[in-house]
């Protein structure tokens, strides 16, 4: 999948989970939860939104790959090949 396509999916997913977070203000290399109040419920909802949008299952053991936006992008790029 194209990078800008993935970026759009991540943007939409994050906006659905935490409408009050500004995607562009997050440092992509730092875990989201170190920059904002983002708890395990948010992580789970983020995983649900991403898996729905991309039609992939994201096992619980892969949640750490969703921690930062950059890592998330790399992980999703790998998963959607």
């Amino acid at each position: 999948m194209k990078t800008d396509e993935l970026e759009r999916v991540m943007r939409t997913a994050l906006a659905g989970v935490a409408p009050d977070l500004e995607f562009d203000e997050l440092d992509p290399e730092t875990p989201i939860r170190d920059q904002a109040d983002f708890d395990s419920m948010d992580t789970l909802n983020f995983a649900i939104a991403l898996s729905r949008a991309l039609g992939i299952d994201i096992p619980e053991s892969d949640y750490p790959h969703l921690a930062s936006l950059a890592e998330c992008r790399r992980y999703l790029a790998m998963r959607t090949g």
Partner: protein
Amino acid sequence: MADFLMPSLGADMDEGTLVQWEVAPGDTVRRGQVVAVVETAKGAIDVEIFRDGVVEELLVEPGTTVPVGQPIARLRECGEAEPTPGPAPAPATATAEPDTARVRASPAARRQAEALGIDLEALAGSGPDGAITLEDVGRAGSARESMAEAVAPAPAKPAAPGRPVDIRGAIAAAMSRAKREIPHYYLGHWVDLSPANEWLADWNASHPVAERLLPAVLMLRAVALAAARFPDFNGFWRDGKFVAGDGVHVGTAISLRRGGLVAPALKNADRHSLPELMDAFRDLVGRARAGRLTGSELLGGTITVSSLGEQGVEEVYPVIYPPQVAIVGFGTPVERPWVVGGRIEPRWLVRATLAADHRVSDGRRGALFLEAVTGLLQEPETL
């Protein structure tokens, strides 16, 4: 005829701003139906009506701030005759728009729009499901400002009178009352989370992401089941005596990203399976953060759980939410050496605490209750 009053949505609330009516004169309403949206310090709250009837008249226009206890609508009770012609009733010009979905907007956006005098209906939302975000309001505000500047100096808009107190004030009032009136006693107990973690990992590995559970749900369920067995921890202190709850409605402390927290209730938490409870919990967290809770959720808790989650410290000494009589706290799980069958093993532990009202129960009884909670948590298959 009955008056429907501006409800008190918390011990700390003196007044509320009617944001929107969800009913129109002539509508039949049922007990528990949401009839209005009221803006309070805790966000926009869906207000339910507590009796069946027919809406006779709406007494307050949206946008009006009125004190708690003031009639805001008049209700004809079922079976009550319609008022005879006499003076012609005002024509029902209030155009009921039952099919038009209410404008979805975050509480912050609502507040900002009100401060700027911007009509939310006129905005296109960029948030989820077209919800209007603070940013949308800001854009509309600056667009209008630049237009206004071109035409005339923007008039200074006076601050809206009677703004609801902020959420800090709401927490201050409730917690001051708790510490002033409730003689708390505190108990703590370590819980070996390994069985729960293993059970949860198995469950989550065999279910799609949307059906997975969070550890917090196991904790909520354990407290709910224990509270059903120990009714003296589930209810209220009212007028100098304990009144048992009419069910186990577990308030769950939810932190809001804009600051502060609310503790809306998961109703009948002892009667729902873990997956049902997870869905209800997810829904509650989402609406709490979007500022869309109902009055009965905000006030309906019979006991509260405060869980620090994955990021925090290992122990919390929670403060009872009046008029409740108990609150259970869970710290952040920690991996520690633990003695199992005479051997030291690394284990994931969580510190469970109980703060209870000494007017209602004593430490011995509290210990049995907390043991019941932790016992259930250590046997996840019983949850």
